[in-house]
């Protein structure tokens, strides 16, 4: 196989290579070799992986090819190389959550997400770098993941390595986690698609938690169709997760043609024009006008403001995270990064009354958002307040917890971790500095099919997803 062809192969969307696999135009081994070659070529600049599973991936690829040759087809991920964030338990494989605390942790069972990917025949090429314990800061032992569009910039997080890997062709998709925006923010910063499904849509079993009641797992991919393919594999009820929803999983790929015609899209001033960079705001407003051009109607809706929703989310996340970490925080505080240790200590001083009040506010805010969504099918807004910020001085590389900076970063994403509604970030253009910008669509609970159909219609009409990051040009 010529090197140039490998480069091209690594840049194709998941659904495209899935089609080529089914037509026997390419093998799983060839795809895996192309992915590993891309990792070899640029990983030293991106630091996107904690562990690359080279031998296991090639063995799994050979097995996938043998199965297909024998007539067995496990579906759209059969033989497709993907990655997973290093907080998903993998039996016999180190699972670090990018922290010194778990540096030598080797689980004895797989997370449900991992089991479902394996059952679908996906080839897991590696476990991706992330912010320590998905808690908004890099541990110096693991280091940051620079942005593939500009290596001096942040990928945000916490699914930093997953987003960078997908953007740079190191796997055709990844599974990350989102408690305040950790799938959608890095997806927006890296110019890819990131979906936070409904709370309960994807099992949390076997994932290292930040906050039991606000953690969501979901896909990061290059296209919306890829996202639909991955969600179809990892979604569904799981008896090992007490909050798993008993809701059937639709055929997301088949629903993509649903489009935007006749859809009602809600906007709100606090979620569109406040606390957002002017360049990002202009691109998002242009995207919303584009939705109208595709047949949607746009109207103002009343929503509880981020200034209520984000403190409520932090009032829940902060003590829940500390409750999980308490034994380590007492016994090994020096093994955390400074910023994560501070956040965990803040959880220890959060009054129980504030936690309960935050849970009351969560109920009220969720009811108000659901009431707004009786009038509209979708909400539209920015994903992040800015495009990718410089790594130096960024929240994720800071040694301080900085609660207000964290609250500002999750201004548009956090409210939907609080309420559990599904939300997707889609590329909507580039700044003058050629940094990607994402905008966010939100749907009613368990309406990921309609959400992805709308996102797909916009994506196909605009084509922002077709650009490749600058790290591939050097």
């Amino acid at each position, binding site marked *: 196989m010529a090197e140039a062809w490998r480069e091209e192969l690594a840049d194709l969307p998941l659904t495209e290579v899935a089609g080529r696999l089914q037509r026997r135009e390419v093998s799983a081994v060839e795809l895996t070799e192309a992915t590993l070659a891309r990792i070899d070529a640029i990983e030293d600049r991106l630091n996107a992986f904690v562990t690359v599973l080279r031998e296991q991936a090639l063995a799994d690829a050979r097995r996938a090819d043998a199965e297909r040759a024998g007539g067995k087809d496990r579906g759209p991920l059969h033989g497709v190389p993907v990655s997973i964030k290093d907080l998903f338990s993998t039996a016999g494989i180190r699972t670090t959550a990018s922290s010194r605390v778990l540096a030598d942790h080797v689980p004895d069972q797989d997370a449900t997400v991992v089991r479902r990917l394996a059952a679908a025949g996906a080839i897991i090429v590696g476990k991706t770098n992330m912010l320590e314990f998905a808690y908004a800061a890099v541990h110096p032992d693991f280091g940051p993941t620079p942005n593939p569009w500009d290596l001096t910039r942040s990928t945000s997080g916490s699914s930093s390595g997953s987003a960078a890997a997908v953007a740079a062709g190191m796997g055709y998709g990844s599974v990350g986690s989102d408690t305040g925006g950790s799938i959608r923010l890095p997806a927006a910063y890296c110019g890819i698609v990131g979906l936070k499904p409904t709370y309960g849509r994807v099992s949390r079993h076997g994932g290292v938690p930040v906050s039991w009641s606000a953690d969501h797992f979901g896909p990061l991919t290059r296209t919306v169709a890829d996202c639909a393919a991955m969600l179809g594999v990892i979604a569904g009820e799981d008896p090992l*997760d007490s909050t798993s929803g008993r809701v059937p999983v639709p055929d997301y790929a088949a629903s993509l043609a649903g489009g935007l015609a006749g859809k009602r899209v809600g906007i709100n001033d606090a979620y569109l024009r406040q606390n957002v960079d002017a360049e990002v705001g202009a691109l998002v407003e242009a995207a919303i006008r584009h939705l109208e051009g595709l047949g949607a109607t746009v109207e103002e809706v009343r929503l509880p403001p981020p200034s209520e929703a984000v403190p409520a989310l932090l009032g829940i996340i902060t003590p829940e995270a500390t409750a999980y970490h308490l034994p380590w925080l007492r016994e090994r505080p020096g093994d955390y990064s400074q910023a994560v240790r501070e956040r965990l200590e803040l959880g220890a001083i959060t009054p129980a009354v504030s936690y309960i009040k935050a849970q009351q506010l969560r109920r009220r805010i969720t009811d108000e958002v659901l009431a707004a969504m009786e009038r509209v099918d979708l909400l539209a807004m920015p994903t992040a307040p800015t495009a990718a910020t410089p790594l130096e001085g960024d929240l994720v590389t800071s040694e301080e917890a900085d609660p207000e900076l964290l609250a500002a970063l999750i201004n548009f994403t956090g409210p939907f971790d609080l309420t559990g509604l599904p939300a997707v970030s889609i590329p909507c253009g580039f700044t003058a500095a050629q940094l990607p910008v994402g905008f966010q669509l939100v749907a009613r609970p368990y309406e990921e099919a309609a959400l992805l159909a709308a996102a797909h219609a916009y994506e196909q009409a605009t084509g922002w997803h077709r650009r490749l990051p600058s790290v591939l040009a050097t």
Partner: protein
Amino acid sequence: MEESGGTAPAVSAEQVRILAAVAGVELGDERATALVPQAEPHLRLMRAVDAIDHRGAEPAGEFRLDEGRRLTNG
């Protein structure tokens, strides 16, 4: 904790140290002092939550007995 500068709660290193100790986290004087600049904005955010009157809302935390499941590992 005393109010200062509108809704911003002023908190001392000693108060931070004691609050953490109640949760079983021993900070020591130096660490408690270092945490104060983070504790103040954090507690200000919590105060914003506390200030909203939502007495009519049940907390969102869930406790179910209807499904016959016994789960301890999430």
